[in-house]
Every structure is written in C-alpha cells, then in structure tokens.
C-alpha cells in the first residue's frame, strides 16, 4: 500500500480544494491518520473507494471522539542572550485547543487486501455546529455506526438516510459518551465500591465511609 503521505498528495491532486492533514500518533502503534475537511469529505471518500490503486471498499469501523477545550503545555528550547552569552533556555508554551467532536473511519480494501487507512473529520465546535457530512452514501456499513455516534456524541450527519437514535430512546436529551455527561443519580448499594463509585457511595451511604 502507498504511504499516508503519498495518499495525501494523491487526494489533493484528485480532489481540487480538499485540505488533508496527517495527524501523527506518537504511541508505539504509530497509526497515523488523515484529517479531511468537511466540505470535501464525501469527494475524498469516493476517491479512496474508487481509485484503482487504493480501492478502499470496506469501512470496518466508525467511532466518535469528544475533545473538550483544553490547555496544552509544551516545552520548547529557545536560544536567548543571557548576560551577553547565547544559551539554550527552556520555555513553556501554552496553547488552547478548541473544543470539537471527531468522527473516525477505519477503511480497508477487500480487493487489494490492504489497510487500514484512518480518516478523521472534525466538527466546528461541540455545542451547536456539530454537523459533519455522512459517508453512508459511500460505505453502507457506516449507517448504524453513524447513528450510534449521533446518539452517543451528538454529531449530526448531513445526508444520512435514516438519522435516529439507536441505543437510547426518542426524546432522550443527553449524549452519554461526551465527557461532560452527568448520569442520573441512581446509585445502589455495592459491597466493594471504588474510584468514582466510592464517591457516589459516600453520598448515599455516609455511614459506610
């Protein structure tokens, strides 16, 4: 299979206007992924599926990720003049990562027997502008998994043929997989509570703690 950088440049050549970014994964898995922009995502997906070299005809998994706003700290070395002598000084650089929701697609090729290539899309924010284009018209297997993301993360997939909740009921207001989800307080006694459950246990059974 071509490398991710090759795929990226081929996408940019084939789909005019598309911006593709390689998101690196620093863990030992080193499974890097492609971030595509919302406007061209369907065209990029169609290219990945139909291209004679790539032929990603199977989308095995779609999942969501919730990224709340976070302050990232990063140490960088800067050369500075200290008392007339040039020295390397470490400085802490702080950046604010905006909040957004992400949909992640894992693509394989049955015909070429290669993969996976990981495709990501990000929403503008996690409050109102949570729209992404649906890739169900490209890969039918996305249908239920996009519904699941709609249910649990609250991403609205435009162009999805049947976008309804799948696990929770109609009329349910929350998105349980979001990191700021607060579950209903219905703790029941447990003999060996621990971690978060212990905190709840203390609230309900103060005598036990």
């Amino acid at each position: 299979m071509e490398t991710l950088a090759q795929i990226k440049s081929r996408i940019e050549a084939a789909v005019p206007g598309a911006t593709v970014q390689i998101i690196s994964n620093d863990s030992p898995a080193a499974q890097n992924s492609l971030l595509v922009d919302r406007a061209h995502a369907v065209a990029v997906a169609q290219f990945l599926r139909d291209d004679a070299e790539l032929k990603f005809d199977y989308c095995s998994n779609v999942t969501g990720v919730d990224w709340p706003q976070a302050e990232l700290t990063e140490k960088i070395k800067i050369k500075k003049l200290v008392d007339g002598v040039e020295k390397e000084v470490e400085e802490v650089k702080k950046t604010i990562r905006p909040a957004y929701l992400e949909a992640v697609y894992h693509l394989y090729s049955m015909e070429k027997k290669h993969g996976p290539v990981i495709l990501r899309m990000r929403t503008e924010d996690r409050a109102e502008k949570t729209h992404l284009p649906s890739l169900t018209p490209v890969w039918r297997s996305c249908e239920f998994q996009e519904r699941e993301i709609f249910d649990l993360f609250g991403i609205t997939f435009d162009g999805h043929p049947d976008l309804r909740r799948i696990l929770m009921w109609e009329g349910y207001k929350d998105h349980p997989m979001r990191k700021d989800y607060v579950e209903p307080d219905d703790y029941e006694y447990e003999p060996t509570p621990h971690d978060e459950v212990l905190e709840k246990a203390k609230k309900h059974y103060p005598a036990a703690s």
Partner: protein
Amino acid sequence: MDEGLKNELQKQGVFTTTLEEIYNWGRRNSIWPLQFGLACCAIEMIATTMARYDLARFGAEVFRPSPRQADLMIVAGTVTKKMAPQVVRLYNQMAEPKYVIAMGACAISGGPFKQGYNVLKGIDRFIPVDVHIPGCPPRPEALIHAFMTLQRKIAEQELIGAAQPRHLNPDAPSEFPVPQYGEHDLQPPNNPKVWRAPALVR
C-alpha cells in the same frame, strides 16, 4: 386433617387430600413460561428446555408466545432502560396468577453493566420478582433450581386467610405502572411500592 388418620386411610386404599393441596399441586406442575429472552441468559434458558436438561419434567415445556396464556415470566438477560417499559407492559398483560423469575446478574441487579447509563439496575425496580438467580449466565441447573423453588413457593400458598397470595386478593394490584421515557432517565426511575433502596445495617 389428622396426618395419622390420613396415613391409615391411605393404607386402606382411600386417598384423602385438601382442596388447597390439589389446587396448588395442579398449578405448580403446569407453569407455562412466557417465550421471550433478552440476552445471553436466554440461550441458557433455551438449553434448559431442550432434551439434556428437559424442563418438561417440571411441566413447563410449553413456552407461550402470548402473555395472555403464560403463568411465568423468565426475565432472561440484560434489561436496558429502552426495553424496561415493554417488559413491564408484558407482565401487566399476563393473567393472574403470575410469577417472575429474574435470571442472571443483569436481570437481578444490572450485573456487569450496573454503572452503565442505558441499563436498568434490576427488573425488581418495577415488577415484583419471586425468585432471583445469580450467575452470568446461570447454568441450566440453576434455572431448574429456581423453578423448583418457585414450585415450592406455590405449593405453600394458602387459599384463605391473611397469607393469601396476591392473585386471590381482589384489592392487591395485578398491574404495575409502566415507566415513561424521560429526558434523562426513565420516569419514574423505580416503583417505590415494589422496590426500595437496600439499607445498610451495621
């Protein structure tokens, strides 16, 4: 009736019994379960009915596809919050006398999904349960044991007096409120008339 006299008569070829005894004997040996399963416990329930474990020996081989014809509800598996109203509604549609076996860790307490946002922490929050079976899933022997426990319970029911079972008391409820889908949880999250939070006694 005096036990000694009863034995004496039996030796003479005269069989005596009470109405209560024969009524309960008849009922406990033909408990027809409702044919429905919710998760993997249902597979064990199916195994129990097949030739190897043979639930038919206890008069319960006829699984009814309609709640109107069933006497026993075996809640076999995880009850999600989305499924709970349907389970309560099925129970309400069954005719008295009716019994419930909660089979497996999920049905009695939520089991491994107890902390989950979408799983009911035990069906006994909404309907009265006669026998609880622990296990994940319980083996067919455990279901048969629960079944025999239920049979013993039926055999001990008194037709008259204060200890009458629910189905003979016209004032006792035979239907229980069906929970509604709320915005964040089921409304109400439990039925305080059949369930209350376990108290910690020290």
